[in-house]
């Protein structure tokens, strides 16, 4: 029950060649030969050519000829497959650009109305002494703020694809430690708010030290923080108190893989392939706060770093998310 993994594919050149038969280099000798042959036949020309060839040569030439034909067929097939893949990648890219444009416009069109709502709410609340957080004006303001965040995050995801990002070596171990302590701080604050001390999750981190530690990856440390933070806090959000969560890291063919595994609720199998879409929320997560943008953001960040994401889940058992990031050397 593994989820789909998506990878960034640079659009390759996908010139569609016309039929080779239409080339004059093929057409002219073929037509001329056929015409002359027909003329000779019709004229009843009795002339002929006769020569002998050693059997060894015939066999040799036949073998090489067959080999060449097989080679040509193979090369043709491979070229066709490449063209198809390039076409698919290009179609995906076109789709992504259109999607990004839509999100840009949406963001742009909603900014002014939201700014106006904020201003109107502030203007009204300045005339009243009502300081209640549940007053209608406070609700309007809070909800406008929420919409603003949503729209802003949508645009950020779209912008991630086109904006230049930092290309610095990022220490994966420091990053992981940082993310874990941020999530634990969050948990502690939530626990205090709920009046029950730190709402514990058993987060274990396993990063290799021998034979060597993880190499650095190249990119933007703040964006990578956001990605890993989102994955880890999802794991916390969707698993019960006291549940075990593992953050693992390993090196694999020029990439660092960071895997976050939880023993939480899991994701229904038919929803796994949509988790990376914007605003996708699991049907079994209705009661849990969230915008459905976290994983879309994670995907955008990892894609921008030339990496891949992958999610596997089993309903009732848990979920594992893998981020594969090229190393700074690789």
């Amino acid at each position, binding site marked *: 029950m593994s989820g789909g993994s998506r990878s960034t594919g640079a659009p390759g050149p996908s010139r569609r060649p016309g039929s080779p038969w239409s080339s004059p280099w093929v057409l002219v000798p073929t037509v001329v030969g056929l015409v002359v042959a027909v003329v000779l036949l019709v004229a009843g020309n009795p002339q002929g050519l006769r020569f002998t060839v050693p059997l060894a040569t015939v066999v040799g030439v036949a073998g090489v000829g067959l080999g060449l034909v097989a080679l040509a067929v193979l090369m043709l097939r491979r070229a066709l497959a490449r063209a198809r893949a390039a076409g698919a990648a290009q179609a995906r890219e076109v789709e992504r650009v259109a999607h990004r444009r839509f999100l840009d416009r949406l963001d742009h069109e909603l900014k002014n109305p939201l700014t106006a709502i*904020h*201003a109107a709410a502030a203007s009204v609340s*300045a005339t009243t002494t009502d300081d209640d957080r549940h007053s209608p004006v406070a609700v309007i303001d809070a909800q406008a703020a929420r919409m*603003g965040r949503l729209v802003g995050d949508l645009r950020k995801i779209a912008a991630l694809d086109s904006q230049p990002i930092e290309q610095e070596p990022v220490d994966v171990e420091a990053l992981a430690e940082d993310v874990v302590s941020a999530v634990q701080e969050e948990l502690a604050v939530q626990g205090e708010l709920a009046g029950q001390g730190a709402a514990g999750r058993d987060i274990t981190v396993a990063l290799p030290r021998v034979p060597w530690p993880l190499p650095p990856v190249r990119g933007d440390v703040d964006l990578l923080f956001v990605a890993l933070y989102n994955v880890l806090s999802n794991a916390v959000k969707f698993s019960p108190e006291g549940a075990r969560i593992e953050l693992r890291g390993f090196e694999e063919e020029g990439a660092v893989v960071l895997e976050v595994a939880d023993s939480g609720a899991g994701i229904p199998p038919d929803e796994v392939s949509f988790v990376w879409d914007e605003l996708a929320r699991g049907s079994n997560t209705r009661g849990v706060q969230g915008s459905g943008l976290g994983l879309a953001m994670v995907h955008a960040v990892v894609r921008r770093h030339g990496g891949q994401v992958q999610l596997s889940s089993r309903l009732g058992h848990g979920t594992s998310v893998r981020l594969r990031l090229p190393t700074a050397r690789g």
Partner: protein
Amino acid sequence: MTAPGAGAASAAVPGPDSTRPAVLLVDDEEAITGALAPFLERSGFEVRVAHDGQEALDTLDVWHADVVVSDVMMPRLDGRELVRRLRTRDDWTPVVLLTQVGESFERSAALDEGADDYLNKPFNPQELASRIRAVLRRSVGGEKPLSAADRLVSGDLLVDRTARRVFLAGAEVVLTPRASLLLDYLMTHPRELHTRERLLQALWGFDLVPSTRAVDHRVAEIRRVLHDDAGAPRYVETVPNLGYRFCGQVRRA
């Protein structure tokens, strides 16, 4: 929701007109000017409205504004062109740009052009009021602001803003792009308290839950590169529980 930081709202008591700072609000969207102008009036400012950059310039010919608050994208004459025109006619009235796209290029462009500050739409109006007050505190008598300078100096530190290069005691040092944007922002707003949230919003453009530590990391980088001691800072000072402040004396070079 309260506005954090520097400009804690002094009372919204309208005084006599001469003591009320004059704000020119420029935006082509009626919904915005219609709602923002009354709010700013109630916050203690005298407000006039213009609907594009050209109308703003015409208004400023006949009316003195202490600060201009302008949208960026407008018909006829946009916000960046408005700042440029003002600066070329040697008018240093502080300008707060309301950036629409919130993209990094627009943020740095806003600063390069000589705007004094900027807010990403949609913003909290309280935040705008406190930004306006902060800008007013900084700007003394229509003098050229630090944000319009090409090069800034503080002690051994020299920042070439146009070339985006940083020198320490004559030797060039290298900061990551974001750290150098942060240093630029702190230096052009010296002795002013900036909350982590404000810096994150203004310079990173994303406000993801706990990542105010991103600000801490870049401050740490600045300190490391500039050999600045957090305990006895020459440049960036930590204001406990609140944020950061550039504590050095900054002058144009």
